[in-house]
C-alpha cells in the first residue's frame, strides 16, 4: 500500500463523511462549507483555536499512551478514565494538603502523587489479570464508574470548597499551576510533558531489552515465555506504567486547566485515549498526531456551534463519521488483493463464459 493511494483513501473517506454530514447541516439550516471551514481551519490555523486544540490534546495523548503500553503487553486497559480521576484526586489532595512548597518542587511531587494514584488504580486489574487470570477489560471498565463516584464524593464532601454552588474543591495555590505555553491562552505545558513521554516510551520499546520483552508478551505470550520473559511481571509493569500516565493526565487537568478538582472533570478522555491509541496503530511515536487530530476535531466541533450555530447533535454525527472514515482510510491491507471486488468480477466473467459454452454445446 504505497503512500499515494493511502492519501487518496483518506481524502475519499473524508469527502464521504463530510458530504453525509453536510446534508444534516443543511437540514439544520446552515451552510456546510462555512461550517467545515470553521471545523478544520479554526482548530489548527487560528491562534485561539489551535491553543484550544493543544489543551485537549495533552490529556488525550497521555490517555492514548496509557492504552498503548499495556496493549503492547497484551493487556487491554480501558480503565484510563478511572485512572485519570484517581490521579487527579491524588494530585489535588496533595496540592491542597501541602499548599506552600515552591513550584519547582511541588509540581513534580504533584505529578508523582497523581502517577501513584493512577498506578494504584491500574494495579488492581493488573494483579487480577496476572495472578488470577481475571479479564482486565471488565475490571478496568467497572473501576471507571467507581472512580468517578469516588471523586464525586470527595468534591461534594471532604474537599468541597467553601459555599461552592457546585461540587468542586478549593483552588490549588498559584505556585502549583502549570506555566502557560501560548500567551493569553489556557495552553499549559502539559502537551510538552506528553511529547516527552511519547519519545521516552518509543525509545524504551524499541531500544531496550525490557521494552522489547514487553512487546514480545503482547505479540506471542508463549514465545515470550520461551524467551525467558516473566509474563506476570511484565503485565503488572505495563499496567503500572499505563496507570501512571493516565494519572498524570488527571493532574494536568487539575493544576493545568481547572486549578480545582471538579466533579466530572474529565470528559471521557480515557475513552478518547483508546481511539488515539488504535488510530496510531499502537505506535507511541504516532500517538501525538492522532491525539492532535482527535483534539482538533472536538475543538473545531465546538467552534462550529459557536461560530456557525450548528446543532451540537449534528456536530456529534460529523465527528463520528470523520473518525470512522479516517480509521477506514488508515487501515493498511496486509496483502494486495484484500478487496473482494476482483474475485467477484472474475466470478461474473467466468459465469458468463460457462453460459456461452452451454449455449454453444
Amino acid at each position, binding site marked *: 500500500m504505497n503512500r499515494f493511494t493511502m492519501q487518496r483513501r483518506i481524502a475519499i473517506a473524508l469527502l464521504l463523511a463530510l458530504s453525509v454530514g453536510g446534508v444534516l447541516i443543511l437540514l439544520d439550516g446552515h451552510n456546510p462549507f462555512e461550517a467545515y471551514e470553521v471545523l478544520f481551519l479554526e482548530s489548527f490555523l487560528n491562534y*485561539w483555536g489551535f491553543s*484550544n486544540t493543544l*489543551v*485537549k490534546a495533552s*490529556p488525550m495523548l497521555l490517555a492514548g499512551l496509557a492504552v498503548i503500553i499495556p496493549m503492547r503487553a497484551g493487556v487491554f486497559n480501558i480503565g484510563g478514565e478511572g485512572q485519570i480521576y484517581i490521579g487527579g484526586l491524588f494530585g489535588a489532595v496533595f496540592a491542597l494538603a501541602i499548599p506552600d512548597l515552591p513550584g519547582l518542587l511541588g509540581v513534580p511531587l504533584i505529578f508523582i502523587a497523581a502517577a501513584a494514584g493512577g498506578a494504584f488504580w491500574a494495579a488492581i486489574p493488573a494483579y487480577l489479570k496476572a495472578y488470577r487470570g481475571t479479564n482486565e477489560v471488565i475490571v478496568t471498565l467497572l473501576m471507571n464508574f467507581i472512580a468517578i*463516584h469516588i471523586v*464525586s464524593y470527595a468534591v*461534594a464532601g471532604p474537599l468541597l470548597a467553601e*459555599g*461552592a*454552588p*457546585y*461540587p*468542586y474543591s478549593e483552588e490549588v495555590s498559584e505556585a502549583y499551576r502549570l506555566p502557560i505555553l501560548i500567551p*493569553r491562552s*489556557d495552553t499549559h505545558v502539559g502537551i510538552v510533558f506528553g511529547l516527552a513521554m511519547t519519545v521516552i516510551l518509543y525509545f524504551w520499546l524499541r531500544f531496550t531489552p525490557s521494552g522489547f520483552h514487553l512487546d514480545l508478551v503482547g505479540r506471542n505470550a508463549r514465545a515470550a515465555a520461551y524467551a525467558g520473559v516473566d509474563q506476570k511481571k511484565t503485565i503488572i509493569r505495563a499496567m503500572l506504567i499505563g496507570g501512571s500516565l493516565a494519572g498524570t493526565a488527571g493532574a494536568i*487537568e487539575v493544576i493545568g*486547566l*481547572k*486549578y*480545582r478538582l*471538579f*466533579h*466530572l*472533570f*474529565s*470528559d471521557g*478522555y480515557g475513552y478518547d485515549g483508546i481511539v488515539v491509541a488504535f488510530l496510531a496503530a499502537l505506535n507511541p511515536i504516532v500517538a501525538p498526531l492522532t491525539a492532535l487530530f482527535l483534539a482538533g476535531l472536538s*475543538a473545531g466541533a*465546538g*467552534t462550529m*456551534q*459557536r*461560530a456557525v*450555530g450548528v446543532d*451540537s447533535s449534528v456536530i456529534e454525527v460529523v465527528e463520528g463519521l470523520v473518525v470512522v472514515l479516517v480509521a477506514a482510510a488508515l487501515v493498511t491491507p496486509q496483502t494486495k488483493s484484500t478487496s473482494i471486488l476482483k474475485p467477484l468480477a472474475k466470478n461474473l466473467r467466468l459465469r458468463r463464459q460457462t453460459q456461452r459454452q452451454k449455449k454453444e454445446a
Partner: protein
Amino acid sequence: ERAAIVMPGSISDNGWNQAGFEGLTKAGEALGFEAAFSESVHQPEQIEVLSDYARRGYDLVIGHGGEFQDAVERVAARFPETMFMVNNGLGTKDNIANADFYFSQIAYLMGYVAGSMSDTGTIGIIAAQQFKFTTDTVAGYEAGAKAANPEVRVLVTWTGDWDDIAKGKEAALNQISQGADVVWPTMDSATLGSMQAVQEKGVYGIGIYRDAINEWPKILQSAILDVRGNMRSYLELAAAGKLEGALYRADMGNELAMRIGSFHPDIPVGVVDEVNKLIDAMKSGTLVVHPQ
C-alpha cells in the same frame, strides 16, 4: 446587543437546560437580542467556550449553572468589557452578575402542600446529585412538610444521573412502594420517568420549572423556577445597558421569576389559603426559610 448562553446539558431535557435555552431565545426575540447558545458543554471546555464568546464580541455571556462560577470568574478577569452572568452562581464582581433562586423558599411551599396532602404521612423527593441547588431544595421541602405535619416522613433519593429516565422511574417506584404518596422529582429528563411512575401508581407528583399539571394530571402543585422570567428581568436591564455585577435573586417576591403553579382540584380550599398565607409571610419577610 448580543448575548450567548453556555449550558451543561441538552436543550431538550425538559428541565434546567431547556429552560435556560428558551429563556434566552424568547427574551432575545422580544428584546431584539442576537442570541447564541452552546449546549452540553463539559468541564474541560467551559473556559474556552466562555472566552470564545467574549472574543467574538458578545456583550453578555451567561454560564447556565453553578458549575460555571469558577470558569466565569477566570474568563471575566480577561474580558473586563464583557458582562458575564451565572445562573445559580455565587457572589458577584464588576462584570459578573449572578442570578440565583431562593430554592428553599419555594421548596418549603411544595413541602407544605405535600405534607398536608399525604395520607400515608410519607412523602418523597428525588434529586440527581448533591450540591447547593439540591441540598437547599431538599432542606426547604422537609421544613415545609414538617410545618404542615410534624410527623411526616420525607424520603430522599439520589440517582446520580440527571437524564437516566429508567433510573428516575425506578427511584419514584421505590419511594411509592415505601409508602410515599407524594413524590417530587427534581432532575432533568429523568423527571419524566418519575412522573411516569407517579401516573402508573396513581399517587401525587410535584412539578418543577413549569406548571406541570398541564402535562401530568396528577400534579398537586409546581415549583415554577421561571428561568425564562428571571433571565427576562435581567436581560431587559442588559438591553438598556443597565445590567450590573449584582445578585439578581429570584424569590416569591418576584412573581416573574419564581412562583407556584396551579393547585390540583383535590387540594382543599383550606390548604390553598394556608399556602397563600405562607407566600404573603414570605413576601413580608415574617417567614424566613433556611438555608437562604
